């Protein structure tokens, strides 16, 4: 009895405090106060778009398009690696892209990684071996910021998992640089892109510090002869970065089919056993 009385008092007290001190002023502000100013960037922002036909790894039956992954790796190597690291990927992982052991050895040796002189102990650099991770282009964060207008280029290993709808986001961002839509600009005449930033409608604040990395069709000459348009390069590198973020993606989906098929079979048997065990019980009358 006392608990219920105490409960009613406490309940009314909490509700009163909430309603009188927080809710009523909040409602008053909502009704009569000034509407909060929304940043103009909201008007320009667009959600990521998928490339035509989507990616080969999309959906429950997705597979790697190995040729595309190789092209994407080439784009990373020739364009992105100037500023962005790939530290969670090792050269030996490139075997999964279809390169032979000899090709991987050669690929690794083409990169320069930090090392220690075995005689003097001084820090030096040496050619990479398959067991090395991809090196970062800068020795530390301060050097990275100093070289890039105080913005640190993020490591790309996990980029497609670190952004919502990541694969489409990378594709849209890289192929989506341009001028603001004139119609929207007319409604927000005060909007401007500060010096040192670049307008891109797929970036959350629409002004980002990265200059367009893909500027020319044919910027990269693909080894397999595919025409390197900007959307093609954007799509290929987005696919490559999806692989770097999750090398086990295809294996995961393929294993999933077997697991769920087995579970559907086992659950059906379990259901039939359940029905058989309960068969003797008279059913509910209603």
């Amino acid at each position, binding site marked *: 009895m006392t608990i219920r009385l105490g409960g*009613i008092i406490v309940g009314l007290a909490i509700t009163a*405090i909430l309603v009188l*001190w*927080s*809710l009523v002023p909040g409602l008053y502000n909502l009704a009569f106060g000034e509407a909060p100013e929304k940043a103009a960037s909201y008007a320009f922002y667009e959600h990521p778009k998928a490339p035509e036909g989507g990616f080969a790894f999309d959906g429950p039956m997705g597979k790697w398009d190995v040729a595309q992954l190789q092209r994407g790796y080439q784009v990373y190597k020739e364009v992105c690696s100037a500023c962005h690291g790939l530290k969670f990927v090792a050269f030996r992982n490139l075997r999964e892209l279809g390169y032979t052991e000899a090709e991987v050895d050669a690929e690794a040796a083409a990169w320069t990684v930090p090392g220690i002189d075995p005689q003097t102990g001084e820090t030096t650099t040496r050619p990479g071996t398959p067991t090395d991770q991809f090196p970062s282009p800068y020795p530390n964060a301060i050097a990275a910021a100093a070289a890039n207008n105080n913005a640190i280029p993020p490591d790309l290993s996990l980029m497609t998992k670190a952004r919502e709808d990541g694969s489409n986001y990378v594709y849209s961002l890289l192929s989506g640089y341009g001028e603001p839509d004139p119609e929207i600009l007319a409604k927000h005449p005060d909007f401007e892109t500060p010096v040192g930033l670049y307008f891109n409608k797929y970036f*959350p604040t629409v002004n980002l510090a990265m200059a367009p990395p893909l500027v020319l069709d044919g910027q990269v000459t693909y080894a397999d002869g595919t025409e390197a348009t900007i959307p093609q390069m954007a799509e290929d590198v987005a696919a490559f970065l999806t692989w770097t973020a999750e090398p086990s993606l295809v294996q995961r989906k393929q294993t*999933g089919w077997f697991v769920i098929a087995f579970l559907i079979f086992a659950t059906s048997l379990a259901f039939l056993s359940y029905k058989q065990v309960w068969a003797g019980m008279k059913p509910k009358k209603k």
Partner: protein
Amino acid sequence: MSFAWAKQYEPKTPLTKWLDEKLPLPRLVYNAVGAGYPVPRNLNYMWNFGVLAGVCLVIQIVTGVVLAMHYAANEEVAFATVEHIMRNVNYGWMLRYAHANGASFFFIVVYLHIFRGLFYSSYKAPREMIWLLGVVIFLLMMATAFMGYVLPWGQMSFWGAQVITGLFSAIPFVGEGLQVWLLGGFSPGNAALNRFFSLHFLLPFVIAGVVILHIWALHIPGSSNPTGVEVKNESDTVPFHPYYTAKDGFGLGVFLILFTFMVFFLPNALGHPDNYIEANPLSTPAHIVPEWYFLPFYAILRAFTQDLTIPFLGITLIDAKLLGVIAMFGSILVWFFLPWLDKSPVRSGHYRPLFQKFFWFGLIPTMIVLMICGGAPAEEPYVVMSQIATAYYFMHFLVILPIISQIEVPKPLPFSITEAVLGSDDSAAAARTGSVGAGSKGDLPDASLQPAE
């Protein structure tokens, strides 16, 4: 303790007889989940979630122990060890995704289990202790899940830890000192990460211990059932094995299909992309949100936007942050008092029309609104919505339920479980043939179960 008609364990072979004499474990299992534990025959699928919760705990412990073999809780390497697990450890990706999604499914199952308890008043006498132990388990789960989410040391791990440990500083006088002592520093860092790993490894075994007490407490009165009418005769029950081992086995199969679908095809759907960015104390994420299972409580925390002041005098009694903390913890503490707040002698919501209305049109929409607001930025209209929902939440448990339980006119209860399942003529026949001493056609129902009229 069990019902008089429960089957007795009888060891047949020399080995089982020897074992029964020295360490009667088979007898314990027989009486707990075997043929020796009579259970009401009319349980519906809402009664599957207790067993599923136990299975989730086992999945978490098994995947967690193996993950712990490869994880290191040092802020320099923690994120990298998780990536090592994802890329290099054989089937590490499967273990990691199973553990992360397993936590989500553990909460889905436990929330359904709790809502079963709320609808069918499983917390009422004689089952109060089971309910209290259950709330303790839920609090331990929340602590475990919170600390587990910090371990990968991503952006959300760090900043979520920053927000939640920051709440301790709201406690008057001792708050700031307490926060520094708990964290081992002034903000989440290596000291906090290490101790969170230690506690995250420990607490699941504490949960397992409380679960054992929870099941032990249950086996004293036995399970409740959808009618809320207590067991009277043998015809009201069936032995747990094979009836509910079979039903739970089927339920487990359905659960595993849903669980593995998430793990193998949508493993990051319930997570936040920001946690794939390494923790950076110098860069605050645009929106700090906890995992989905904490969202209702996060909404309650953020609902209090103004300090509690004495108007015109400008004296602050309680500041908004402390109000939010008190309300957030209070929202779970009210559950401890439920057995004494809801005094209706009728248990099951099926026979309580007024209670049902407030349950389906009050409590459930409120929880949904709180969850949506918890995940939204702290802007209008979400702030106003969360304030209204928080007010209703506390009104529901502390004011509405006690009042309903006094004024409500319940529907007439069935005489017994057998009557509810078979209908009255058949049940009388079953009672005569199946009963052991009590329960023939002319008996009056138990006085304590008479609806208040």
